[in-house]
């Protein structure tokens, strides 16, 4: 009956209930939207690492992120590939160049060179053609979301990157990076574009054989290659993300926005629930006079906060789903991992309960003796 009374009070006090709901929806929607952009950007930061298909990466020593790797000698590849635990080891090159558009202007691009025929570390999703196009020495891929920036080239178009002739061989689907437009090509072409000397690579991607202990293999590689950095793919991804979060201010910026969103929600919930309890002060006093203990009043107010937070969470997630659906396929970064919604919902419930504390304090102050005045 206490929870039922709480529900009936909420249904009756529509304006304050709507206000509290708005607070919860604001928390869920604004924080969810901020988080989805943050996770989307995080994905961009480590996109090459996460989609490499490798178990480990070998890079120059003391790197802070995958994009800051200095060139390493090709001898590292030969020493790696000879190990019995290694299924394959493939080099990759990162460089920069200017993409020549149809109108003669240029756009700066990040070029990634992968070795034929494995094409390890190459693009992973396509809207036109596929990976095999990179088997052609002049072929490069561009992303559909970057097409307008690059002058809307089509498959088969011939252009230049860094004064080197290339052919648009395939169009990728959302294979985009944090450091700008990604263009994939084969190793030789990228070496030519970026003027990287022969016998040098940006990194070596390593795949271990099934059944071997990755940690042991990585330790072994660190012993064999003492002047290189050897990381598991997960470690390198985390290292890169952490670097960008700290050094670009993204972490602070999104953290601040998230905290502000939560604070706005808490203030709205606090004010509306307080005003609702203020209007119901006499009712709580009546309930106390009728025999309600303090804990019974707590149950009523907490039930109200829980009902509001659960409905608010459902509405907030519904609005988020609509937003995610609307931005799907656009250049706006968004990613909302499956593990996040339960945590997000749990935090929202806690925040709603915190927002109801002031109201609860007021409700508990309702004096049963006041009914006789």
């Amino acid at each position: 009956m206490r929870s039922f009374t709480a529900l009936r009070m909420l249904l009756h006090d529509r304006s304050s209930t709507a206000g509290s709901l708005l607070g919860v929806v604001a928390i869920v929607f604004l924080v969810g939207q901020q988080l989805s952009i943050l996770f989307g950007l995080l994905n961009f930061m480590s996109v090459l690492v996460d989609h490499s298909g490798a178990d480990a990466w070998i890079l120059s020593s003391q790197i802070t992120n995958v994009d800051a790797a200095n060139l390493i000698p090709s001898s590292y590849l030969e020493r790696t590939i000879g190990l019995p635990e290694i299924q394959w080891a493939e080099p990759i090159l990162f460089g920069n160049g200017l993409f020549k558009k149809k109108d003669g202007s240029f756009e700066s691009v990040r070029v990634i060179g992968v070795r034929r025929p494995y094409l390890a570390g190459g693009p992973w999703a396509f809207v036109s053609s596929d990976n095999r196009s990179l088997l052609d020495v002049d072929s490069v891929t561009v992303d559909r979301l970057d097409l307008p920036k690059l002058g809307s080239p089509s498959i088969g178009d011939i252009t230049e990157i860094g004064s080197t002739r290339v052919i648009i061989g395939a169009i990728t689907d959302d294979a985009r990076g944090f450091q700008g437009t990604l263009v994939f090509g084969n190793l030789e072409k990228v070496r030519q574009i970026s003027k990287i000397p022969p016998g040098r690579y940006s990194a070596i991607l390593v795949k271990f054989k099934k059944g071997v202990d990755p940690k042991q293999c990585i330790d072994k590689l660190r012993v064999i290659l003492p002047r290189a950095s050897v990381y598991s793919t997960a470690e390198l991804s985390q290292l890169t993300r952490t670097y960008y979060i700290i050094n670009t201010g993204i972490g602070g910026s999104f953290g601040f926005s998230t905290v502000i969103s939560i604070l706005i929600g808490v203030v709205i919930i606090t004010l509306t629930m307080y005003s609702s309890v203020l209007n119901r002060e006499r009712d709580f006093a009546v309930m106390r006079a009728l025999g309600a203990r303090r804990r019974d009043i707590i149950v009523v107010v907490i039930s109200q906060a829980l009902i509001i937070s659960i409905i608010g969470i459902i509405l907030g997630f519904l609005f988020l789903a609509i937003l995610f659906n609307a931005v799907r396929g656009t250049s706006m970064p968004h990613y909302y991992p499956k593990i996040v919604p339960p945590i997000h919902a749990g935090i929202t419930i806690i925040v709603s309960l915190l927002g109801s504390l002031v109201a609860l304090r007021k409700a508990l102050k309702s004096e049963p003796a006041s009914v006789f005045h």
Partner: protein
Amino acid sequence: MSTILLEKVARDFTDGETIRRVLFPIDLEIYPRELTVLSGPSGSGKTTLISIIGLVLRASEGRVIIMDKDVTNLSDDESASMRLKLYGFVFQQPMLIEGLNILENVILSLAVQGKKIQNSEKQKAMQLLKILGLEDYINMQPRLLSGGQKQRVSIARALIKDPPIILCDEPTSALDAQSGQVVLDILKRIAVEDKKAVVVVSHDSRVFPFADRLIKLEDGIIVSDTQEEYTN
């Protein structure tokens, strides 16, 4: 045997640094089957007295014994449970909870500590509302009822628990003459037929003819305690 026994009960209030005595030591026994009226001018202490009797206010001095149990020093929760078990309240304003319909307002009195309502209790509430002439209003919101109807709902809310003590604070002051008469008839019947101790605080002279006992307070002191001559 008395239902309510007050021994040297007094009450002080603090105004900043000064202590003001609003109720001087009072000895009082209230019996079942009687409608006892507490009367007196504003500030006479009658509200304080009924609040102490109703366990919503603590006495500063003295002992309060309800149904042979000393309840003077009960905790807040224990007092609440005593109120739930032993008391029915009818306030000056009906104080029904908006959002709950009439039937729910009545059964709230049973379930305010979270008890699950049995079907038989719901039937009893409907029966009570029927006796009080409110059977057509059970699903209505309180705001749609007249003042007299609301007060009858609050009487049903007080009676649903079948408590031995009914405390009423100015139950007729907000009602017209006819509604007031109906409410007083009901309260009198409850006292006499249901063998309950009914205490009514009122300075409305229309109430006096219904009293089995009239206690007058002035400046925190009982100045008269009379029986029979006011009996209807």
